[in-house]
């Protein structure tokens, strides 16, 4: 087990929990709509040779949504403050799903504090036309449909029926925060596609081959908008390749960031 510390970072009245795990070059991890990922096996592997910096977005994991927050832009600017306050240098920026969108928005502002960017089954753009459902509407899918779209191996999905009331309330709160950051335009910023050209650091997209939320074609469209980006598709994985194939995920991640 690698060393781990947790603290609360206060940024102009907004408190963010921050987990630091392992030692080495910094990796800033931006979680997705399902909440923190610091406790997962892939994080344990990566923290063997890097220092993971894992903040929790406001509203997730039982934290409050700041009164003035309306959408992702509030989160982007909070993170710009956080990144400055941590004085990150040559950090690796990695984002999962909604966190990938967040990472992209941060990167198009400036890549000055980052050396590499990793986007995992990321949202953020709309490749298709008005009638195309480019991103599954996770807020309108039935429990069954959502499981189907999210997982390659559904036995890995958390089961609500086995959770405590407190755990279920955390998930309900996470969903509110997820909705706040992504509702409309749904899971994307129409302007982002015109800004992604500004990303001038090596970028890797990691994708689950069977992701039904954002399919590999979506990933390819995102890749094509980022100069020099590569895409690595992991078989037998859905929207969470870092959970379904943690070993393969860590190997591809480490291969990219160490290269």
């Amino acid at each position: 087990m690698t060393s781990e510390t947790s603290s609360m970072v206060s940024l102009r009245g907004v408190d963010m929990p921050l987990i630091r795990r392992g030692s080495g070059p910094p990796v800033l991890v931006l979680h997705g709509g399902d909440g923190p990922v610091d406790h997962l096996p892939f994080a344990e592997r990566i923290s063997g040779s890097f220092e993971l910096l894992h903040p929790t977005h406001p509203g997730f994991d039982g934290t409050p949504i700041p009164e003035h927050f309306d959408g992702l832009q509030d989160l982007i600017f909070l993170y710009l403050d956080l990144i400055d306050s941590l004085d990150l240098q040559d950090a690796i920026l990695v984002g999962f799903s909604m966190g990938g969108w967040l990472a992209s928005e941060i990167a198009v502002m400036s890549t000055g504090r980052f050396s590499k960017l990793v986007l995992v089954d990321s949202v953020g753009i709309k490749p298709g036309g008005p009638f195309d459902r480019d991103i599954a509407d996770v807020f309108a899918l039935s429990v069954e449909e959502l499981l189907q779209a999210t997982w390659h191996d559904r036995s890995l999905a958390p089961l609500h029926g086995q959770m405590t009331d407190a755990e279920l309330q955390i998930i309900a709160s996470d969903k509110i925060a997820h909705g706040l950051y992504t509702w409309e335009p749904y899971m994307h910023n129409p302007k982002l596609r015109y800004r992604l050209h500004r990303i001038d650091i090596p970028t890797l997209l990691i994708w689950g081959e069977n992701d039904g939320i954002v399919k590999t074609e979506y990933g390819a469209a995102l890749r094509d908008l980022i100069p020099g980006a590569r895409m690595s598709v992991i078989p037998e994985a859905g929207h969470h390749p870092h959970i379904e194939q943690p070993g393969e995920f860590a190997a591809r991640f480490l291969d990219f960031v160490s290269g």
Partner: protein
Amino acid sequence: MRAWFFTEDAYPYLPDADSYESIRVSLPNKHFDPETGADLYNMYLDMWCAADEMGLNIMNNEHHQTATCMVPAAPIMLGILARETKKARLLILGNPVSNRSQPVRVAEEMALIDVLSRGRLECGFVRGVPYETAPANVFPYRGTEKLWEAHDLIIKAWSHHEGPFNFEGRWFHARQVNIWPRPFQQPHPPVWITMGSAGSAAQVAQRGHVGAVFLAGYPKIRGIFDGYRQAYSDTHGKDMPIDRLAYCALISVGRTEKEGLDVAEKLLWYMTSNKVPPQFSNPPGYHAPAMAATIMRGNNSGTGLPTATTLTEQMARGNVFAGTPDQVYGQIKNFYEYCGGFGNLMMMSQAGFMTFEETLTSMKLFSEEVYPRLKELTAGYDPGEMQEIRASLPDVENIDVSALGSEFVR
């Protein structure tokens, strides 16, 4: 007491409920036959016109993407009734202003109806039920705050008459507001707001609007109405006039007890047909996390309505008043005294497969044999005396409320 005839204008001719996932949001409209729909629209308008002729007031509402309510634009139906009726007050309960993007447009529509009806409009504003958020594409978080912002803008649009004013709020922006027409009633039509808890009731009471409650029944009505009365006297320094409170129940009056109960069974379609899966009844941000969690666990439908219910149970809860005129009067009087009095009875007297004839029979019996006695009951309203009666009635216990939503606000 003022009574308001209400039907939600259902389209009940549906395939077996086992064949679809939801009656709301996603039920394909191939199941809507336009010929049948035309018949139904005309039948519902005829019912409202009959209510006018019987001396009842009129209430209507709207829902979207659902067979439970064929009217997605209540102002259109109310516009027809403003022209077709003569005496009835016209209540819309209400405009879903948390889900509509242009409050100024709502102010204009309502002013038109008020002028056309020569001042008969009563204008409700609602947050809307959870399954309205998907059709509106609206994130329901902070929906109540959004409702009040729209409310403030509409009230000013109605009551400001000296040329354009500016509004730049959190949700709504309108920099040149100067509606034509302005309302017939001055300074503006009476306002109604739905409420489902003491907290939401306080916000309505502070503004002095009519607070409307749907189907809270014995288990919850005291908390809500007590909250309103307390906040009203705290804010305004006097007792609440009885016309500030409204209660909606399912009502069926028969020539015999059997007829009243048989028709009430048909009214229950409103509750039993409301099949809605959690992704629509529990959108993120509508319910507080504790409530959302109980829906996720499957202990609660999230609709605020029990999908499996019996008439006996619903009558015991105070959600249905049914039987002979004497029985219905007695049931309403009991409820009225239990909750400390209210001056408006919203009566859902048609639902599902109830025919025109069945509905008119019930309405006529109500208007001739129940309504006069209710008017007499409330005419003698004395706040102090009423509270004494209320205090003498113990809290109704042993009613399982777990199947009901904690905050049923339409």
